[in-house]
């Protein structure tokens, strides 16, 4: 190849490179969603306005008061479960604003009002619980509060995905940053409840949230992804995503403080329901099917069932008892079935498939039966089964020692089916 030819090739290469350089400069001058320091002006999406929650998930735990021990789906560690089981439904009034802390308040059915407090701070007000969250874009970090609070300290940023690495074989200029979500990290939290029934998070919890605005047909939606990391009570991060629909104005705003009595009425109503059930005279018999009332039952252990039925059938002079129990694990549930037949004569009768367990029944009076359980001949449980409410309610009080040596007690209230 001649020298001039080489020079021309080199010149051509340099021209193309120059062109790409020029082009990349031009690309760099194109508007970017976040070129300004003013977070309000740089907002890639407008989140302000009134939003109403649409409770299409976890309805049972969000719209009704869940029973103690219902932490299905929450990855509690053993300590978290222990604390959750200590919650006392009769002392809800003392819970105050614990169910309305930042880690849970988005899940509370209600409305949000989102507005700009100033150019650096986005404000979220809730009508349920009357909470206010301030999301700081933190150009002035010195304003952080040192005192833990239910809403903690929230650091906000616009979540724009950054291109990484080279421009690729096509020598194309880099892609602009894309995205449009609001990312919020909240710390400095005061301990609270992930669910109203005392499922705890601690002051060590760190909350990460993403707020996205979606357009679905003619309706604007807000989706809030909430990620809770809590080394004290959770075995892994807890993720939920919550949906809100945009409303034209605040005409449906229903402000209620977090200690408003209406927040505990759902549970009270539910409890009253079965108490209103008509009692039919003369049904002072065990025979029938009984369903566990989770709200009225108490357990000393940290694995209460989520469902239990007991069926008694007449068997000669005695009774056949079938107990079906469902327990909820982290993400699976298991149902077990125990059957035995016994006379009311105080003698030990075997429980099939139980590695040597027996049961003895003895009638104490017309409404009370005593039950003694033994394992390998050694007594390990004492229980009393008592009928009340005209034969519509069965209360089984039991105390005993588990196979691991731990003592337990429980009072289970069943309603006749």
């Amino acid at each position, binding site marked *: 190849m001649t020298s001039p030819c080489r020079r021309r090739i080199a010149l051509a290469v340099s021209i193309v490179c120059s062109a790409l350089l020029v082009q990349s400069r031009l690309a760099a001058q194109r508007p970017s969603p976040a070129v300004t320091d003013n977070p309000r002006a740089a907002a890639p999406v407008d989140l302000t306005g009134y939003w109403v929650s649409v409770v299409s998930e976890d309805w049972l735990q969000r*719209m009704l008061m869940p029973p103690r021990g219902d932490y299905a789906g929450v990855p509690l560690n053993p300590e978290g479960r222990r604390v959750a089981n200590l919650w006392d439904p009769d002392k809800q009034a003392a819970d105050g604003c614990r169910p309305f802390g930042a880690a849970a308040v988005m899940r509370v059915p209600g409305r949000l009002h989102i507005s700009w407090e100033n150019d650096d701070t986005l404000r979220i007000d809730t009508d349920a619980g009357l909470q206010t969250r301030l999301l700081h874009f933190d150009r002035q970090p010195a304003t952080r509060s040192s005192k833990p609070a239910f809403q903690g300290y929230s650091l906000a940023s616009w979540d724009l995905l950054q291109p990484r690495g080279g421009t690729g074989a*096509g020598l*194309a200029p880099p892609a602009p940053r894309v995205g449009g979500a609001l990312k919020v990290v909240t710390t400095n939290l005061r301990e609270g409840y992930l669910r109203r029934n005392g499922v705890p998070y601690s002051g060590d919890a760190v909350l990460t949230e993403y707020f996205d605005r979606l357009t679905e*047909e003619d309706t604007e939606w807000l989706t809030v992804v909430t990620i809770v990391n809590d080394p004290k009570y959770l075995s892994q991060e807890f993720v939920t995503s919550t949906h809100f629909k945009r409303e034209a104005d605040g005409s449906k705003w229903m402000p209620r403080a977090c200690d408003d009595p209406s927040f505990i009425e759902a549970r009270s109503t539910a409890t009253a329901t079965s108490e209103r059930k008509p009692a039919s005279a003369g049904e002072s018999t065990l025979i029938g099917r009984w369903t566990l009332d989770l709200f009225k039952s108490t357990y000393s252990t940290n694995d209460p069932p989520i469902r239990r039925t007991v069926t008694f059938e007449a068997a000669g002079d005695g009774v056949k008892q079938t107990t079906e129990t469902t327990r909820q694990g982290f993400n699976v549930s298991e149902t077990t079935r125990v059957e035995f037949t016994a006379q009311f004569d105080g003698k030990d009768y075997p429980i099939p498939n139980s590695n040597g367990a027996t049961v003895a029944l003895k009638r104490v009076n017309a409404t009370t039966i005593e039950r003694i359980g033994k394992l390998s001949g050694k007594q390990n449980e004492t229980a009393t089964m008592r009928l009340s409410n005209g034969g519509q309610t069965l209360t089984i009080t039991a105390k005993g020692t588990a196979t691991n040596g731990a003592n337990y007690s429980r009072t289970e209230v069943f309603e006749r089916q």
Partner: protein
Amino acid sequence: MHRVFRFAAAFLFFAAVVSGRPALAQVDLSGEWGVTFFEDILHRGATLVPGDNTGVPLSEAGRRKAESWDESVVATHERQCIPHPVTYAVRGPGNIRFVKIVDQESGRLVAYSLQGSYVGRFRTIWMDGRPHPSDFAPHSYTGFSTGTWIRNTLVVTTTHMKMGYLDRNGMPSSELARMTEHLIRHDDRITAVTFIHDPVFLSEPFVRSTDFVLNLTGNAGAWGVCAPDQIVDELLDKPKGYVPHHLPGTVDPGRELFLTSRHVPLEAARGGADTTYPEYRRRLRDLSATTASNSVGNPEGPACGGNRCEQRPPAEGDVRVEHVQGRVHMIAGAGGNIAVHVGEDGVLLVNSGSGKVTDKVLAAIRQLSDKPIRFILNTGGDADDIGGNEAIAKTGSRSGGRGQGAGAVVIAHDGVLQSLIGSEGREPSVPSPSWPTITFIGDLKDVYTNGEAVQMFHQPAAHATGDSVAFFRASDVVVTGEVVDMTRYPLIDTAQGGTFSGVLAAINRLIDLTVPKDWQEGGTLVVPIRGRIADEADLVEYRDMLTIVRDRVEDSIKKGMTLEQVQAARPTFEYDGLYGAVSGPWTTAMFVEAVYRDLSRSPSASQ
């Protein structure tokens, strides 16, 4: 030379600046993703029971459908291989995988393949801007999906879904549903926000979301093959066509337990849009947890059960052609659907439409073949099905073993001819040039053409006395005639010997004829008299609907209810949004009357 070089250099500079477009402003979803299984666990886990519809904006039709659902229905032969429908699939505990499908030459993204999560086949999300299939294309459990990017979100629109469910306790989704998924990427997470719009079973869009995390060490799973050879006999003691369901007034025992143990008022447990808003908590305070059974004695709700009351056949004259499979095509929009079988020997038609737009029908046929029309098979004698016989047959010619001659051969069961001739002293309903030229009396008529066996099976006393279905054995296509209408309840012409029980028997026979490929999809395809192309799963839905209606009417008759009382009880309520009509030639009331009169004089087909 230097001038030429300078020009070339300037061109290079210009081209490089202009053509170097920035990379597409979109994020990527490809990779392995692990599901986070925290939210809505009582619906997604093993604890879900029938009757727990909490949080779902079901319409009254959706509630009724869910309440009649009996979980043992999944043990029936035809339902054992049904995968999770796309309306539910990502709610399971399975991990997923997004795979990019790119065009090798341009490097452009053509589609994403979404794999895993207990859905039968891999889902394809088309990113190349292609349109959705026509209204007459078959539906599937994964549907047809297209995607487009909006900021950090892939918005996926899915149509052409089969009848499915929202959760595994029988909460239904209809084939008219449409789904939009917003797949939002944040850091190493995807949040899939799903909106389901269903004009039949929902009164508002149903929104829910599922969260995934990038799983660098995981592997998506939960797929495989479920084919007919894997189906086992689980309901041996039940009669043919048995469909488990709960009659109105009976309740799944699981619901009782659910209501009692969690203190859930029945009204709230049934779901509904109003139950999903904060205001409903005030209502909850007023409700008591009752376990009253569901009743359809005085059903309330829109006249068609769901929100959609109009019928769906295309406007007459809007003639459209859809390839079914093999040598068989379907022409819609000319009255009843016309099946067109093409090959070297010529054209065979099943039915000829109403005859009002025959020019368009012939033009459509000529798009498919320039060979002569040799045969017209008539599945019945209705004007919508044979109206084009005369004009179309005239353009054809017969040849081969049937002798040379002008005009196509028109074949039907003798019952069709008898109904057309009319009774003594009455004028024929259709002029004689439209009548079949060859009829058969027995159960079967065979035709062999275009290298394929075509069989006509007589279905006695179905929609009328002379019904047949046509079966293309090599193409694996069944043409049903009037016994299956995807747009309305089957027409029962009692004046021509039609019976409801005969229609039901015909559909059960069609189910015997059809064989799905796998996952209860595809395989033998079905051309109904109106509406879209179907397969065995769609026949099963149709059969199940008719069977449930039959059982309800039969139960009402046993209770001594009059026709008027049965009609007022609306035994078809939740299906009216799909098949019902309050006006026109075949209304819901007329259908219920046909069922009632048939069952009043004879034991049910299941006896």
